[in-house]
């Protein structure tokens, strides 16, 4: 039995094709991925995975987290629906808006465009990590101080893209900020103030 096609009634999407095709890919590359991850669920190349759910372990904000996923489950759905971290938002589910931005091994990643199984063995950082243990990152404080939000639905993704920009560039220019944030959309129109929050943080402003 093959994985049921995703969303055919609404038109054939690029990602539904990827989701369908990835079963085979996982079966061959799973060994390498899981070797790093530790748990042996995927270790046996002969193991057939899916349809239906199975357990994988994600390294989520530094903690090994076991979640039930299908082969077609995106990293975003695994984080939100299975691990219960709802900071990353589902807005377009197609890599067009950045609201689901997380870091995977430090790289800005649209978590709706990655399958959960492909993230096994990688370090995943979500927006929740920037206020873990009651310590709020200066960038997050500056988002508030600059009022870099309105409805707030894009904000977690913006925070993560901004965080990655700062990690990578230290003191970015405005042009670099604009380029680094280009994958993220804010419908309320808060961009200028997000740029300001990043600049303030780069200059060492704690709030």
């Amino acid at each position, binding site marked *: 039995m093959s994985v*049921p*096609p*995703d*969303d*055919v*009634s*609404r*038109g054939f999407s690029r990602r539904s094709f990827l989701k369908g095709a990835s079963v085979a890919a996982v079966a061959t590359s799973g060994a390498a991925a899981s070797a790093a991850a530790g748990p042996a669920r995927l270790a046996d190349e002969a193991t057939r995975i899916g349809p239906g759910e199975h357990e994988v372990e994600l390294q989520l904000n530094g903690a090994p987290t076991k979640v039930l996923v*299908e082969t077609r489950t995106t990293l975003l*759905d695994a984080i939100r*629906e299975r691990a219960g*971290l*709802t*900071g*990353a*938002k*589902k*807005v*377009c*589910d*197609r890599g*067009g*808006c950045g*609201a689901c931005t997380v870091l995977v091994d430090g790289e800005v990643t649209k978590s709706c465009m990655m399958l959960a199984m492909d993230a096994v063995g990688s370090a995943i950082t*979500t*927006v*929740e990590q*920037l*206020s873990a243990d009651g310590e*709020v990152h200066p960038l*997050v404080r500056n*988002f*508030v*101080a*600059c*009022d*870099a*939000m*309105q*409805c*707030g*639905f*894009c*904000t*977690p993704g913006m925070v993560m893209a901004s965080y990655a920009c700062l990690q990578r560039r230290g003191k970015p220019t405005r042009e670099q900020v*604009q*380029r680094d*944030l*280009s994958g*993220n*959309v*804010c*419908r*309320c*129109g*808060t*961009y*200028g*103030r997000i*740029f300001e929050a990043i600049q303030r943080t780069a200059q060492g402003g704690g709030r």
Partner: protein
Amino acid sequence: MNGEVELKLGFGNHAEKRKVTVPDGDAPAWDLDTRLRVVGSDADRVDGLAKATGRAKYTWDVQLPGMQHALILRSPVARGRLVKLQYDTARAMPGVSAIVRLKDDGAKVRFVGDEVAAVAAATLAQARDALDAIVAEYEVEAHNVEYLDHPDAPVRDDTGHVIDPWQAHEGIDEAMAGAAVTHDATYRTEVQTHSSLETHGGVAKWDGNDLTVWCSTQATFGVRNELAQAMKARGYDVGNVTVLAEFVGGGFGSKFSAGREGYACCALAREANAPVKLMLDRFEEHTCTGNRPGALMQLRGAMAADGALLAWDWRSFGGTGFNGSGGGVTFPQHYLDNAQRRSSHRDLPADTDPARPMRAPGWPQGYFAGELFLDELAAKAGLDPLEVRRTNDPQVIRGEQWLMAAERFRWKASRNPKPGSPMPGDDARWLRGVGCASARWGGMGSPGRPAHGITCRIHQDGTVESRSGSQDVGTGLKTVLAVLTAEELGIPVDRVRVAVGDTRDPSGPAAGGSTVTPSLSPAVRHAAWLAKQQLADLVAQRLGIPKEQVTFADGKVGAGDRQLDFATACKLIGPNPIEARGQRFPNNSTAFNQGVCGCQFAEVLVDSWTGLVRVTRMLAIQDCGLVIAKKLAESQVLGAMIQGMGYALHEQRILDRRSGRMLNGDFLRYKVPGPADMPEMEVLMMTVANGHTNTGAAGVGEAPSVAAPAAIANAVFNATGVALRHLPITPDKVLAGLAQRRGS
């Protein structure tokens, strides 16, 4: 019983004392002489940290034990009838817990995306599998998704200009015949989708016959009533209905109704005997939740040599949707006091998703046409378009704004003296220009029926609560509650806990028409003011001072040198908190201005090789009565400018005429402004004391969205010398315009 007071109203050099009749029992009205401590300051958004840390729970984030996930089956045909719907197979599939029909056999199908049935299952993937297994058959009829192909649409020439003759009108015909300059042009706008980032939808949970619904909505109370009625009408036993919307991921006018998805969610939850979440996906959001409709607008008019408008003849056509209404437009009327005028409008249906209100519904369309028309007239007359505006604009507030903005924006120096040619110092490839436009809106708020309320509680432990059942869609209601309550009680803003978006709290307006802040702010003050009286009583007794002398300031309560810390004073309260219900009284009859004024200036750089338009600078000056939370008010204006930029340059729904389906129903192909598009932007908020309520606050959501597209279109006209009369101004239109200009 009403009293009369004298208030200092207006602004700057236009301040004046006026006698104002105020409601008996209301908190004393603020005016220009009131010294405010927190109001108007740079207070932070009170739920900012919750949003920026990801802790804020939106409807999309609600997770309940046993919760089922739902999807809607939608029509793939634009017009026809549903003839067969079979879902026995789907119902029996793994995980499927309920299926409800949303259309009867034989019912009309009215657009691609029309709701047919809904499925709930244990996981979204299972629901999707089940959706694919439902058999729906349709009888297909010929459709038309282009309103300008409707038989009643006006006849146009190859350029899109309406060529139907104008009906005679004595005053207009006479003014046109004798005028120094006349002009006749046709303008057009395309469909803009709201594109709220949080899609429509809800989570429904039944407890016996009581229903709780988390809903991404701009109208908690409207949705509550709508769902109760819809469920009862379908024979469900319905007890109490509670709607919850603490955080809402945008709305912009599209979220006033629970929609078919709201009904479906509640019905599925009842049938499944479990909580159900039904949130739309992005394609559904673009195609099934309304839009700002397109418009075709023709204008002819006349101007005297000195710039005075003499005639304004307007006819417009609105593209709507299958329902054939909601396409109305509004042009700038404040220039027309001395002009002969006439206007007519007609909505034309098409087999598409119906229009919904969107941020100043109809105004950005009409202002784009009207303000560009004004610049075209000015160009013909050889006049500065800013001077033409000042000549015709009688509004005293905007009169100041035009001057202030012109200076700050360096209008004269920035204006391209030879439109179509590069500015001195620029490379030959680049065409630069600037434009301006006016903004106008009402937004004075209203009392509501029954009157809106606010609950204020002061607790023994020194905490204060301010509660409204109304919703905060990102505009800042929560911060408004906290700032006003803190001001009234003389305490820090972080001492106030606020709650919104729960219909068990006092009712408030829907977030539409820029009405929430002006409608609720007087009630917030009233509630805090009433609660304050009760605390003043206790403090007066304790300190042995007359109650009338008790003041609340700087965290102290008392009189003269006899003061208690606010927290100490609260210890006098006892276990039952002080609780007061503030009320929204009717607006005072006298007001300095019945609305808000603004203006915007834009500078663009046009690439004559590629046709790409880049906005390089924008400035807005905006009045919203009393500014309560400055940063938040500025944010709204900035956002409106950016949305307006999208409307002017990028955004358009593209439908496939043959299938009736939207071709760009996602964020990859429907382009909203992104970080790389951002110009340098500045906003100046202008406080005007109107005296219409005890706060004098007006709304700010809509007005700034009215001016932005027009200002940008005018800037493109100044840069290129071509009036591009069809939004969005995409590169193809720019190149065609430049080529035509070179050829002529």
